[in-house]
């Protein structure tokens, strides 16, 4: 493999790790920290993704004063997006501004979806809650497919390239941006865990009755966790679309709920470092296998994509049975009040 290919491969790998890390932090604050059985993560991810799909070109047209000439955003998608790209190509600031606007919109949508998701969380227990959230997750994808004006139905739409200004280094620029954003997301959740809210959330996860007896407003705290998580997941979804350059209603519960769970389980539920480790570890394993998998295509009487499924399922079951605490078990928080060891 020549150097250029290796670099591109690495850049794409880090981009996906970054995007998934943002989404996974969204899952971590809900599942790992608060103990919410969030089986509907795809609800927020697809929300952000569809927001990007719907708004990116529209925002570009509005901000850069593009003359649409009466074109429909779905039918005229390619024309209008190309027009917007001419602006993002000329000035980095244009691209970043558009990126910012899309992220804000995704955050707002994420917050709304989070509030909706928290309604069942008020009084449903884990199993019922999981099923309800799973049901929510499927709804948006159906809308995306059936309601064409949203993102153009099954074929989808393309979105402006907010990194067009980088020209040949587009992949480097995008990956770098994503990694910075992922770092921010990671640090933000690290911060939240250390706040009083974070401690309350962990208390809710570990012993709800005790947490309640301390006088904390449980539904409100859970709402906060779910909203924060939903906002992050939504932004992750939007970033995914912006990175890929297009969106289709293909956000399944496998890619955006099951795999995030897998990464968190692998890394260790509750531990934030675990989320980082799990995301990186999984992608590394997966991409390696992907690379060798294609060598098998043609040898086997079936499409090698099925090996993905087999691998995913088996890995999760192995983790659950043999190492449920994941690679990085959760460490208790230091509050600075521990007694010094008695070596006097």
């Amino acid at each position, binding site marked *: 493999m020549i150097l250029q290919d290796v670099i591109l491969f690495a850049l794409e790998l880090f981009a996906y790790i970054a995007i998934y890390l943002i989404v996974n932090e969204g899952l971590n604050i809900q599942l790992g920290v608060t103990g919410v059985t969030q089986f509907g993560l795809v609800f927020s991810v697809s929300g952000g993704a569809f927001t990007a799909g719907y708004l990116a070109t529209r925002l570009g047209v509005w901000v850069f004063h593009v003359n649409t000439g009466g074109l429909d955003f779905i039918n005229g998608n390619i024309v209008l997006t190309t027009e917007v790209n001419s602006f993002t190509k000329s000035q980095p600031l244009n691209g970043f501004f558009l990126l910012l606007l899309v992220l804000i919109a995704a955050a707002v949508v994420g917050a709304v979806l989070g509030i909706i998701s928290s309604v069942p969380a008020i009084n449903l227990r884990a199993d019922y809650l999981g099923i309800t959230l799973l049901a929510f997750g499927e709804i948006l994808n*159906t809308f995306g497919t059936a309601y064409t004006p949203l993102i153009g139905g099954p074929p989808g739409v393309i979105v402006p390239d907010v990194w067009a200004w980088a020209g040949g280094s587009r992949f480097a620029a995008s990956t770098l941006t994503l990694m910075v954003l992922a770092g921010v997301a990671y640090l933000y959740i690290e911060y939240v865990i250390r706040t009083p809210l974070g401690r309350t959330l962990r208390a809710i996860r570990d012993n709800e009755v005790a947490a309640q007896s301390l006088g904390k407003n449980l539904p409100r705290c859970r709402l906060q966790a779910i909203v924060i998580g939903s906002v992050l997941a939504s932004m992750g979804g939007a970033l995914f679309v912006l990175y890929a350059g297009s969106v289709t209603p293909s956000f399944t519960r496998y890619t955006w709920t099951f795999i995030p769970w897998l990464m968190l389980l692998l890394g260790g539920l509750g531990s934030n470092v675990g989320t980082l480790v799990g995301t990186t570890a999984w992608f590394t394993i997966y991409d390696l296998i992907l690379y060798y998998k294609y060598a098998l295509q043609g040898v086997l009487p079936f499409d090698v994509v099925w090996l993905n499924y*087999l691998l*995913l399922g088996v890995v999760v079951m192995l983790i659950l049975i043999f190492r449920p605490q994941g690679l990085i078990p959760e460490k208790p928080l230091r509050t600075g009040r521990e007694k010094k060891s008695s070596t006097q």
Partner: protein
Amino acid sequence: MALFEPITVAQALIFASLLSLMGVGVTLLYKTTKVPNFAHASFVTLGGYVNFSLIAAFHWNPYLGLPVAFVVVGGESLLLFFLVLEPLRKRKSSVALLMIATLAWHITLLGFLGAYADSLQTFLRVPTRNVVLSYLDFTFGGLPGIFFVSITVTLVAAVALYFAIERTTIGIALRASMENQNLAESVGINTTRMLGIAWFLAAGLAGVAGALLPMWTLLNTSSGDTLIAAMFCVSIVGGLETLYGAFAGGVILALAQIVGTTMLANLVGVWLTGYEPVVPLLLMSIVLLTNPKGVGGMSVWKRLKR
């Protein structure tokens, strides 16, 4: 166009039967193992492909393979139960982890079924996707055979289940195991074996539903996935804690989906049918948020059920 066409009702009844067969398994497994079983989707698909294999390879009558589907899928579910779930349950794993475990099993089976369907296509040179077998069906009184078979199978299953659970000693042992595992063990019941029986039955019924599926609509490796929301909906609407509620749930969902959307589409416009997948999700959410006990938990039922 008439709002209430008889053919639509027939379709609804077929759908209701298949849904009930699937949903009663979900409820049975929830009552016994306390876990919503995501792998149920692949139980259905597996049953479909087992039967299809017999038809494609050995030219069996499409209804002859139903018992085979029952046994194969029932047996396969025991693998999930003993290899994966029992170790986790012994360790007192949380419901969330058990749910993920069933989802992981489902994904594994999806991979297996995909590979199997591809291989079958390679070796038998028949298409194994979008399988439609209704042309093999018989007709009676203007209605397709699947209408009679699915309803009969469902009724037989309902009656057999009732007798097995309410009137036999093993049924009492099963109900005892569902209520209080320790107490059941203390009187000598091997609760693990009872749970295994429940899994075999539940999965077997799902397999039969899957085997019948291509006689009515099409069969794909993704069929189970498409139907999982409906399966859970049936179970929840009927009441996750009430075994026989699933039959009511099946009827309700089928009516809502087929009759409801068809009727509404005739009124409002064909575009409505694109939203059909939302029906079970909406129904399920409504029930869970307003009355999680579902139809079966309502006082009318309490007087009828055990």
